């Protein structure tokens, strides 16, 4: 049967044609396609992995963020507490200093007032003395004109003087 006896010519051409097709496709056809497809599937796999990693990192970052917010809040309350303490301290100190200053001023004022009064008294006394002297002069000048008067005056002056010396 010619059906199952391979014909030499066809065998020969089949080897040539299939060999040629195989050579061309194996060199310029399939490797290019399969490599490109491989490249793309690798790329997709890599991208998926990267996306997973990014998501994990994102979750980590959210956690970190929450932690940082919590920390910040604690820090804030700590700072606020410290600030209020410092403020209270400053106020207290300022008050104390003010009191001290006031006391010092008061003290100083007292001393000064005392000194002023002293000097004023001294001044008044000096003026009184001068006025007295003037008055005395005037009186003396008038009274010395009369006879009896001179003696009386001297007496009175002496009295006065002696009386005036007692309170001092």
């Amino acid at each position, binding site marked *: 049967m*010619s059906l199952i006896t391979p014909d030499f010519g066809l065998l020969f051409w089949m080897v040539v044609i299939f060999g040629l097709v195989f050579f061309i496709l194996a060199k*310029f056809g*399939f490797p*290019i396609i399969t490599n490109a497809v491989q*490249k793309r599937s690798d790329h997709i796999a890599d991208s998926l992995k990267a996306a997973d990693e990014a998501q994990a990192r994102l979750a980590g970052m959210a956690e970190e963020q929450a932690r940082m917010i919590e920390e910040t809040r604690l820090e804030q309350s700590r700072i606020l507490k410290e600030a209020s303490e410092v403020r209270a301290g400053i106020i207290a100190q300022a008050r104390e200093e003010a009191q001290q200053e006031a006391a010092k001023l008061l003290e100083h004022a007292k001393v000064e007032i005392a000194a002023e009064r002293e000097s004023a008294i001294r001044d008044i006394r000096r003026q009184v003395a001068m006025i007295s002297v003037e008055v005395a002069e005037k009186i003396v000048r008038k009274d010395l004109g009369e006879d009896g008067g001179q003696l009386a005056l001297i007496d009175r002056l002496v009295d006065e003087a002696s009386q005036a010396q007692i309170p001092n």
Partner: protein
Amino acid sequence: MRKLMLIWLLLLPVLLPARAAEVPGETGDEVQSVAEEEAQGLDMNEYLFGHISDAYEWHITTINEHEIVIPLPCIVIENGVHVFTLHHAAENGYTLNENGKLVNAQTGKRPIDISITKNVLGLMIDSILLVVLILLCARWYRKHDVLKEKPTGLAALLEPVIVMIEQDVIKDAVGPEYKRFSPYLLTAFFFILINNLMGIFPVFPGGANITGNIAVTGVLALFTFLMVNLFGDKHYWKDILWPDVPIFLKAIPIMPVIEIMGMFTKPFSLMIRLFANMLAGHIMLLSVIALIFLSAALGPVLNGSLTVIAALFGIFLDCLELLVAFLQAYVFTMLSAVFIGLAHQKPAHETN
């Protein structure tokens, strides 16, 4: 309405030949040729073998006894190279023997015959088509960045098939070294597929029974045989020549003999499987179509109804052949991949 159409459609072929018989002058070539066949009687043997065998010219059809034939060059090597067409064979001292092969007219011996026959031309056309398709596809990948664009056109059509064959068949069957063998296996797959499909296509560029020819499948099996045995590793050869069996099976080399026979039966089965499947498909289709011409003598009603049945069955068989065309290419590729994989398998006790 639909049912009415269906009934009408079913009746149409029954009525048509009857009408044709009434007015023979007005009918088309189809009916005319039917009438001719009827007159001559259908030579079933010639009809079948004419379609499935190789030939020195490509007979397309016969219209009004006028044959439409593509003449092909006969190339014969016997005391030098002789090139002629079948028409001029006698002038060159050659004639056809009872098997339809060129022989020397005087001695009756077969010369070395490397004629471009129908199957060779079919192979050339299909191969050019395949190479163009695959290279166009490869060109798309060369010109475009696969990371930025999705394949379009031909690349989009071929890529899923290539990926399926490579990832699901070759990679699984061959194992980690599959990259070395995938160009061969993919070439084999697409080569068989395109020849199978073109074999189903009934007119000129197709219609040649290429993969249903034992020489073609034999060469394909030979390539697989070479791929398996040239690249087999030392475990493969050890399993063949000195397998892990009791010593008495090796001392008288029973197992090695069986294994060496196995080396040849595997590609042999590939050859026969593809050849027989494609040949059977062609014969089935041709037989079903022949029913139309054979029943012409039985009268218009029987002929008409059988025509309907034959046409419907032909459609069914054509669909089946589409499946078989793919399936046989797939099976050939898968088994080749399995055989290559077996030649690269580490023994079980070493892998564990």
